[in-house]
């Protein structure tokens, strides 16, 4: 048995020596971009982005993945000044205040005019690369009369059953909490109390919630207005719809920033310019299933053409979110724990 122990240790040691290491190839500079796994992984736009950027930059683009956007920020904070990251790509506006306060990024100095964002963009540290509206998605074959407004959605006591995500563990969950906050302010607690009986369950992340919805556990699930595009584009199913509320929909804007400690700020800046270019932006819609920050010249893909669009967009300023989130989460908890 102890021989087995020794063998295992030896085996582990060998693995350590042969583990893949980032070796700089020849004299080409390497640009290191930290991003989340869904972006860089097999089903995300990462591979296409890497190929297109490397074709023009005479450099190597190293996409380093973390589990999700949450661990992206944690990782940057843990590494501090020693981080290898030149660019961070995949935070959203709910995290930018924290990143700025921690001194992790420097102003990008780019011209952000001409963005196709539903809100004006004034952030000088981060550039947006894609965005989406949060929305409740439903199966139109099963739910014939979805609520026509947020008010109706809240007030119908026997309205549709919903599945949402926990704002403490999930980005969409946080988005919904901020959505209610933006619409109702001090009355948010009452709204949550009214919704509570119709919440089937609150999940840790988007995947559990969407999976449970597809299994028929609820009438509606919190997701994005772009979710139906996946069903249209890949599965050729048109029965999934997003309910559009005239009061407005809360936005998620995903951003990229130039890391302060980068030793290649010029190369990093050229990557940020690339992020707003046609080559990058055209990979967003059917790669990340979000709207591109700048619509490519060919327009949006066919799967996005039939999507319903909200008329009004809601987005709280990053600093407002940072200062209020704790208290709003307590209100949310208080209303749903009753």
């Amino acid at each position, binding site marked *: 048995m102890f021989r087995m122990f020794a063998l295992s240790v030896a085996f582990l040691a060998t693995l350590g020596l042969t583990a893949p290491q*980032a070796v700089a190839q020849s004299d080409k500079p390497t640009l290191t971009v930290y991003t989340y796994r869904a972006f860089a992984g097999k089903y995300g736009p990462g591979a296409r982005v890497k190929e297109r950027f490397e074709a023009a930059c005479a450099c190597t683009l190293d996409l380093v993945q*973390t589990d999700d956007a949450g*661990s992206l920020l944690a990782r940057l904070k*843990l590494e501090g000044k020693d981080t290898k990251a030149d660019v961070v790509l995949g935070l959203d506006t709910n995290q930018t205040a924290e990143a700025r306060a921690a001194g992790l990024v420097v102003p990008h100095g780019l011209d952000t005019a001409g963005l196709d964002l539903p809100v004006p963009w004034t952030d000088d540290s981060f550039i947006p690369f894609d965005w989406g509206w949060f929305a409740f998605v439903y199966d139109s074959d099963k739910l014939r009369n979805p609520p026509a407004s947020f008010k109706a959605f809240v007030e119908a006591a026997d309205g549709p059953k919903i599945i949402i995500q926990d704002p403490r563990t999930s980005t969409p969950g946080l988005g919904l909490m901020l959505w209610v906050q933006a619409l109702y302010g001090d009355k948010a607690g009452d709204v949550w109390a009214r919704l509570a009986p119709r919440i089937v369950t609150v999940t840790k*992340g988007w995947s559990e919630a969407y999976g449970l919805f597809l*299994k028929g556990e609820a009438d509606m699930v919190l997701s994005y207005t772009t979710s139906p595009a996946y069903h249209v584009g890949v599965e050729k199913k048109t029965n999934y719809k997003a309910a559009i509320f005239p009061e407005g929909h809360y936005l998620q804007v995903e951003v990229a920033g130039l890391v302060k400690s980068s030793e290649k700020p010029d190369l990093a800046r050229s990557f940020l310019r690339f992020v707003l270019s046609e080559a990058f932006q055209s990979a967003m819609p059917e790669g990340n299933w979000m709207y591109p920050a700048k619509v490519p010249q060919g327009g949006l893909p066919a799967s996005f053409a039939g999507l319903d669009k909200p008329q009004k967009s809601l987005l709280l300023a990053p600093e407002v979110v940072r200062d209020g*989130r704790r208290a709003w989460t307590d209100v949310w908890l208080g209303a*749903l724990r009753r």
Partner: protein
Amino acid sequence: MVPGLLALALVLGVVAAALAGLALAAGPSLPVVPWGYVGGVVAFSLWQALVSTILSLALGAGLALALARRTRFAGRTLLIAAMNLATVLPAIVVVFGVVTVFGRAGWLGEGMRALGFDMGSWLYGLPGILIAHVFFNAPLAARVFLAGLAAVPAEHWRLAAQLGMGPLAVFRFIDRPVLLREAPGLAGLVFLLCFTSFAVVLALGGGPRAATLEVSIYEALRFDVDFGRAGVLAALQIVLGLVLVLPILRLGTRAAEAAATGFVEARPDVEAVLPKVLDALVLALGTGLVLPPLAAVALSGARALATLAQPEVLASLATSVVVAIPAGALSVALALAFAGLTRRLRIARARPRAADAVSLAGLVILVMPPFTLAAGLFVVLRLVADPFALGLPLLALVNALMALPLVLRQVEPPLMLSAERYGHLAESLGIVGTDRLRLVDAPLLRRPVIVAFAAATALSLGDLGVAAFFGSGEFVTLPVLLHQRLGAYRMDEAASVALLLALLAFAFFILAQHFSGDGRAGDR
């Protein structure tokens, strides 16, 4: 003694390093902790963990007795392997499986509706949590109890037959002591597993009413990036978990075993009516709880089976196996070293309290929240090496530690038995060290070790990999691929990865049963 102390140092060292890493990252200011909320969460966690533990152990004991009495029936090997499978599947897969069977639009609900009963939505809340936890843990309990029952000396059975003991007397004088002997350690393990359960409790608990401390720890790391708060909450969870479990472990009083001849004797209570009825009921209940969710996993996985031929699936499969096999081996080696140490403390040194403390240390990794473990280790490792380069070995090491409590539960009892039965003889003959392990302990240990190795390997296969939390993304294991597919709307393709994981773990258990000779009458 020395390997045991080394193993102890490794486990405690990793946990301490992780906490130190968090403290280092947090800086000097004291974190703000929402104590009121934490109190409510802890109260609920305790309640659900207590009920889950009682139900899991009760069903587990019933299943073990039924399987011990019924050594030949069609599908016994399959049932045991399927039960083992339940323990090692990723939480998200089990949630989907349970919902497919017991959910609003699930098999049970639809079946009842067809019969004219509408059950409505009853799953979310305590029922859902309990179903999932019993699904995970009753098979685990059954496995440990069954191993205990299998080690009952033949003399007991012969004596029972000669005395003409009825089924009740057999239970009272032979089975019950075995169950009571294993129960405390098992209860401690299951309690901690349920106390720290996270994704299952949230998804099936219906909302923030049902939550564990891990939610707050995750929040602290994810949105607040507050390492101090994460560290304090993690320390709280560790202390609470251990303080609660220590008295459970102390409950374990046991009479020393006498030497046995090693013959095999049939149980005398196999033909009685009462056990027959009971066993049929328990087997039906256990099968009804465990098999349908597994069948649901298999069925939904079958829809996109073709996607398993994609190169990234094969690459993930290779990565997973390369991590899981050394992790399983390391876990078993660590457990043997641990169990050797506790045995020595208990018997040779007569220090049962110290032995309890060491046993407890073997459980410590269970109460260490994965995210804090990953984040803390990351900080510490960065001081000495590049965590990128350590990816795979780190993953294997952490997985080995995660499986350690389960493996320990299987390896400790037979090692104790062997000392009680043959310890004096071995000492008088001067058999020590590895010779003792090889000559004296091995015959009793062989089966539990093989099964434990399979369990640890399978568990490692199904683990999302806390080391990947801050990893570089160079390696994609099967569970990571599963989550990638889920996150990209590809639910069917994700289900096929889940099926592959299940089949792989299933194969491990079938092989383990084959090589350990379980189910073959007369071979022990």
